[in-house]
């Protein structure tokens, strides 16, 4: 198998990721891509606490993820890769072909962002980043949990 879900979610590992998506996908590992968490063992332990022991959690910087992506894609287990911002996924997608689909699962309110969906707030620059990602051939949709319908990019940007 490989990475079944590439997700942008500013809560990183939480209930929707581990239970909502993790259970139906029967995942064996989660890759958390975040430079600050990668550098902080205490934060890593905090994120591990919410994950059952049988699921591996891998912490990576964006640069490390860029290098390791092909190895994770060859992993026989199913995995989820989650990053807290669009830029990380945009880098992993490269010039196309490495990431087929990106799931916008949760980007919450911050100054400069406006509400696009209940769980997606974007600045105009972030909306443009997502459109640029789509222009490279990546299918970008918003969907917080698997039972919800995916929302096409054009409906929230």
């Amino acid at each position, binding site marked *: 198998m490989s990475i079944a879900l590439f997700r942008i979610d*500013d*809560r990183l*590992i*939480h*209930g929707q990721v*581990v239970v909502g998506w993790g259970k139906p996908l029967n995942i064996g590992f989660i890759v958390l891509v975040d430079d600050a968490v990668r550098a902080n063992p*205490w934060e890593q332990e*905090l*994120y591990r*606490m*919410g*994950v059952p022991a049988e699921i591996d959690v891998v912490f990576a910087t964006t640069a490390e993820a860029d290098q390791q992506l092909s190895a994770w894609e060859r992993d026989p287990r199913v995995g989820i890769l989650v990053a807290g911002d669009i830029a990380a996924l945009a880098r992993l997608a490269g010039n196309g072909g490495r990431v087929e689909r990106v799931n916008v699962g*949760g*980007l*919450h*309110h*911050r100054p400069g962002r406006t509400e696009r969906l*209940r*769980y997606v707030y974007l600045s105009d620059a972030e909306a443009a980043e997502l459109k640029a990602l789509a222009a490279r051939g990546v299918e970008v949709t918003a969907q917080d949990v698997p039972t919800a319908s995916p929302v096409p990019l054009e409906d929230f940007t």
Partner: protein
Amino acid sequence: MSEPLRGVIVSHAAVAQALLAAVAAITGVNDALVPVSNDGCDTGALADRLNQAIAGKPAVLFVDLPGGSCLTSSVRLARGKTDVAVVTGVNLAMLLDFVFHRDLPPGDAARRAAEAGSRAIRTPAA
């Protein structure tokens, strides 16, 4: 006498509000607990809600799940503080016990609440 401990229920959706209403309905105590939902929050916004709920006073944070954003935000907030303790797996039984034992130090109150909550989980013969 120092001010009684404050309990902050930290949950997904409206679990916290519902538990608070149940405690008030059963005990008549309606000033011991503060509900905080993670609805619509990133980690920064949830931290703001928690800080507002605690208001710099000694507190026990009752978190719904032993993982996820409610827990990570609560543990980050409690880190290094002796006057803030965290309990996971909040249930009604532990809250009912807590509201009558708010004179304990936060760590002791948290342990006591966890024991009360654990004792309430049973599989009675029907």
